[in-house]
């Protein structure tokens, strides 16, 4: 059978722009020979052929680096949860809320690894969505159950039972980190999916309905994304030399906006009380960053080129 390959994006861009330049590119039915509109793809600069495709093994070092970062983040979160427990025990609502925001920020900064956390992610960060009974479900126990107590009900007592369990879950998770299996493909996808998650869950207000701490979470998402991009940079730069610069510019713009919104103490305003113009700015810059980050997985995709699936009639009996 013919083993046609998908044309890699590198070649595709060249073919497409050759067509644009009027050098042909005649009309076969395959996408590679379609006449290109002035699309994003034709605007790419991929250093054609200079570097082989990324292999899963190339991602071992970035993932190892990222795991160290995750372990540090969870270590910080353990401290946050300890302070949360003390404040809850003392009945100090304001201190409990501060500690909760810090814990949520810690967890939101390691989002690229959530997929590897298994059940512990749902225990720590589960939301009411999808739970029978919603907030009253017995399975609603983690950060957001405590958020409901502290921010929704203004009660430290209501949080009391859940803090020790959260502390135990975070500790268990931190201990698991060295053995955590983060799949190479999943890791490169998280390079932009953390921002997609922020647009879907944080800026909609769904993730943290009681504390409305989307800006806190977004700043953490940004920090974590920078770490992911930093670990991947040695693989990205030789293949698409300007991509990281573009990503950095978009993230810098958002970071500046977020810092500008923080109060003198550094505390973020609630998302649901932010004026519409500032929401528009944050959402726009977040989406603009997602547009840039979306190119990451392609450039460092660790999968081998997949042979095109045979058409009917092409498959011959062995």
């Amino acid at each position, binding site marked *: 059978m013919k083993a046609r390959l998908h*044309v890699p994006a590198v070649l595709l861009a060249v073919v*497409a722009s050759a067509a644009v330049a009027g050098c042909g*590119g005649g009309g076969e039915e395959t996408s590679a020979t379609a006449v*290109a509109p002035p699309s994003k793809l034709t*605007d790419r600069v991929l250093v054609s052929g200079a570097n082989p495709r990324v292999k899963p093994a190339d991602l071992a070092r970035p993932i190892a680096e990222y795991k160290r970062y995750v372990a540090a983040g969870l270590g910080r979160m353990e401290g946050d949860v300890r302070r949360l427990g003390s404040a809850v025990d003392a009945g100090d609502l304001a201190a409990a809320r501060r500690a909760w925001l810090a814990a949520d920020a810690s967890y939101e900064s390691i989002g690229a690894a959530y997929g590897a956390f298994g059940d512990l992610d749902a225990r720590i960060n589960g939301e009411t969505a999808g739970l029978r009974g919603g907030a009253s479900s017995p399975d609603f126990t983690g950060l957001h159950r405590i958020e409901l107590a502290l921010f929704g009900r203004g009660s430290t007592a209501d949080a009391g039972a859940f803090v020790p369990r959260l502390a135990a879950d975070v500790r268990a998770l931190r201990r698991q980190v060295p053995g955590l299996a983060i799949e190479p493909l999943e890791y490169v996808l998280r390079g932009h999916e953390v921002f997609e998650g922020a647009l879907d869950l944080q800026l909609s207000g769904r993730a943290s309905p009681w504390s409305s701490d989307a800006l806190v979470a977004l700043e953490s998402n940004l920090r974590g994304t920078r770490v992911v991009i930093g670990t991947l940079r040695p693989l990205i730069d030789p293949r698409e030399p300007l991509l990281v610069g573009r990503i950095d510019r978009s993230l810098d713009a958002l970071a500046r906006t977020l810092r500008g919104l923080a109060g003198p103490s550094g505390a973020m305003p609630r998302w649901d009380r932010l004026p519409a113009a500032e929401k528009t700015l944050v959402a726009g810059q977040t989406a603009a960053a997602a547009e840039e980050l979306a190119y990451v997985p392609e450039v460092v995709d660790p999968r081998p080129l997949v042979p095109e699936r045979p058409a009917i009639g092409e498959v011959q009996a062995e």
Partner: protein
Amino acid sequence: MSVRRRELLLGGAALGAGALASRVPGGASAGAAEAPAAADASLAAAIPFEGPHQAGVLDQRPPRAVFVSFDSIAGSRGELAAGLRTISERARALTAGYAALFGPTGEGPTPDSGILGPRVDPDALTVTVGLGASLFDGRYGLAGRRPTGLKPMPTFPDDALVDAECHGDVLLQLCANSEETLLHALRDISRETRGVLGPRWKIEGFLPSPGRESGAGRNLLGFKDGSSNPDVTNDRTMADLVWTGREEPAWARGGTYAAVRIIRNRVEFWDRVSLSEQELMIGRDKAKGAPLGTDRELADPDFSSDPDGKRIPLDAHIRLARPRTPESEGSRILRRSYNYSRGYDEADQLDMGLVFVSFQRDLEAQFEAVQKRLEGEPLVDYIVPTGGGYFFLPPGVRGSQDWVGSALFV
């Protein structure tokens, strides 16, 4: 966004990726030339993007439109200019049509949303850009360049404006034969300008099927609307009534001012009113659209022979809007409205009405003069203006490298 990608492209040439160095605007025409012919005439209909004036003003209305008002979130004047330029670059390609590059699956962001299939047909698409007065504040150093007649839309006495659907820095008016063409264009432009323009409000409009009857289309009050528009084929009339001239700074000549008004119709209340009462409020026969006492839609209502309003009441809508006196003819406006419909209100009443759009050379001498005459008309009980804004439409683009608004940044 694409201008940065274009910088990228030039950088690529410097890096030796020479095959990628072709400038993208040429890509649009090359793409159009290579695109297979459209299956039907309405898909093939192309309205040129380039010209002395912007498209989407004099052209016959295609049946669908979307109006999106944006606030600029650009961090600098350069970013704003780049965003506006991107709109024109995309508009040039989208209005000409091209063969969409779908790209192989699993290879990064799809270059095209694909919602039109492999061929992006022009489908009578127009992309029209307007600038609101707020863009000329201190943010981008444009304060000194505001077009003479541009100001924020005021609140008129019968208005019930909702701030969330008023005003805006940049208006995008997209018109086309089909809704999917509009949404394809909007998604395409948005993904390229997301970091520059944040949406403020959006409303979609439609027209009745043209095959239904001749003459002006009906609004959702059931009356023919737009019958007495000025003649768009008369250049002299358009120069007098629509296009800006020497009263404006050089960069702003050949543009026009748009008054966009979201005017809700209280259709359920309206339907509970008798036909004769409706006709007296409007001044037209509902079935034919003819001015009362005449038999043709385009007949002159001849107000001078009816000074006491026995045939057409003195406060009828068409009489106040256009009294047809020598003094009032200079205040004529070019209307290009669409109907809209969008769900129910808190009282479970249908929320539908008119996206009123008028183009004029002078907002105060034309749109506002008409508006003032209409104040307190009997029809106001049935219509509720809730949003919209004033926008200046810069002149059209000259040549393949030009973009709408470019002269503002020179």
